[in-house]
């Protein structure tokens, strides 16, 4: 790993400097994670007197559970939809902002602030808009002949959480796409224009390919976001319901473990989630080291 050519000779000082960070990390991150791994291999008797080591029994039961497999599938649908919807919208807006000159900053300001809105609050905002009794969206949908009730209809509920989660993520993706677009060399675009390529052709043959590092980075970040940071959105809108229709993995691990107190299963779920984050982080960091090239 990289370090300075010249360094201070102190022997003890670096450890002192590292102590606060390492203490917090070990006590509140690594130790609990190891505990989760440990209890995922154990089973507690109903009275909590005795724990026995059961190897992969918790995992076997977990993957035999129809509701867990269902939750995996719903998480995949949810994460994919949020990622695609929010990235497409953001890219469109970023390209548009990149075309305007004078009002550029104004539009940017108006588009970026949702980053600071907490996921739960986002959930409440959209829950209010789609409220079946007084919400404006169901009212308009009724006028179009569509009946909306996310309290009983699982598909409606899923659509609601996807819209809310995508809305929150637009600002983030937008900023990264704008940064990416600004690093596309203007000379390339001008050269293509001189050769007679119109704006759309220029976008698809020059700008979009040059954006691919940004797009790939955002893809991973968005999947990560949809899988882990949307807890608040689900909790504020549907709480995993109706009939498990929006019970994504991160919500299920909370409701089974913290509310349902099923420690063995919840720990196994935690470990599965950890493996997913580790995989996503590994992909993200490998990519940062070597950018997508052609």
């Amino acid at each position, binding site marked *: 790993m990289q*370090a*300075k*050519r*010249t*360094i*201070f000779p*102190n*022997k003890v*000082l*670096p450890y002192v*400097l*590292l102590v*606060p*960070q*390492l203490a*917090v*990390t070990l*006590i*509140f*991150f*690594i130790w*609990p*994670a190891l505990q*989760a791994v440990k*209890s995922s291999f154990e089973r507690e008797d109903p009275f909590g007197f005795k724990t026995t080591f059961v190897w992969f029994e918790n995992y076997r039961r977990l993957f035999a559970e129809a509701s867990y497999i269902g939750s995996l599938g719903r998480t995949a649908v949810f994460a994919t939809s949020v990622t695609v919807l929010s990235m497409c919208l953001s890219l*469109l*807006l970023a390209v*548009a902002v990149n*075309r*305007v000159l004078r009002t550029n900053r104004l539009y940017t300001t108006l*588009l*970026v602030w*949702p980053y*600071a809105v*907490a*996921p*739960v*609050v986002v959930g409440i*905002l959209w829950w*209010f808009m789609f409220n079946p009794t*007084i*919400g*404006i969206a169901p009212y308009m949908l009724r006028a179009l002949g569509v009946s909306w009730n996310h309290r009983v209809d699982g598909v409606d509920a899923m659509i609601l959480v996807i819209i809310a989660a995508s*809305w929150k993520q*637009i600002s983030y993706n937008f*900023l990264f796409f704008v940064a990416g677009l600004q690093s596309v060399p203007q000379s390339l675009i*001008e050269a293509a224009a001189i050769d007679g390529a119109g704006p759309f052709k220029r976008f698809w043959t020059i700008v979009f390919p040059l954006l691919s590092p940004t797009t790939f980075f955002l893809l991973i970040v968005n999947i990560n976001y949809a899988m882990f940071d949307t*807890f*608040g959105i689900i*909790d*504020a809108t549907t709480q995993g319901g109706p009939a498990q229709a929006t019970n994504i993995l991160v919500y299920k*691990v909370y409701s089974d*473990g*913290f509310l349902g107190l099923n420690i063995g299963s*919840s*720990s196994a779920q*935690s470990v599965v*989630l*950890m493996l997913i*984050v580790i995989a996503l982080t590994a992909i993200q960091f490998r990519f940062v080291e070597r950018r997508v090239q052609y």
Partner: protein
Amino acid sequence: MVENRPFLAFLTHLVLILGVVIVVFPVYLAFIASTHGPGDFMRGLVPLLPGPHMIENYSFMLNEGISSAGAPPLSIMLLNSLVMAILIAVGKIIISILSAYAIVFFKFPFRLLAFWIIFITLMLPVEVRIIPTFKVVSDLGMLNSYPGLIIPLIASATATFLFRQFFLTVPDELMEAARVDGAGPMKFFRDILLPLSRTNIAALFVILFIYGWVQYLWPLLVTTDSRYYTVVMGIKRLAATADSEPQWNFVMAAVMLAMLPPVLVVILMQRLFVKGLVETEK
């Protein structure tokens, strides 16, 4: 602009205006709802124009709150959120800048190990280790306290990486010169490195303040005493009064107040915010 196409320019603005409408509309609706009296929600459709009860709703929520929903006055929760967000941001910055300094400017056994331990925090969000982390905090007697809300969240790999990246760009000559002039490591850190890191610290502060403010799951787990509720989790309690329809005007007044501080931070410090966001995430 390469060429002039009026239709495309029109389309561009149309897209942007639609985008702004999509982004702003939910919040506009919440604001409108927060200015009405409770009776205005009985007619079957939310009002679309401001009502006359704004000041009354906001002051009611700030000073009294809806105690039947188990939520204290909003002013207490806002204060808790403010304390939590500021201390998390400051704490993360302090411990990260110190550890980045150790990792970049010193060579010592287990340096790589320390780096990897910090890196691992990226892979362990609270959501994947809820119960054991809760247990550690409860064993340490930190439930329902500010330290319990704050300390478990202040390890930061991203902040450490950002400072490390920045320190690596500081020219070696600067440090050599400082050493020739007789400055020890802490003097070099305080008098040279810290002033150089000012913009990075400010940008990080903006991002981390928002991070601290929007925390939801963690306060939900460690606080059962309403004196320690943060506003973001308190709102959920208000909205979840399941037996009856929530009192929309009050809930939305609370929503507006909970959104305002971090949104203002983003709008007023947009440049630092963008810098912090784009650089920490690399």
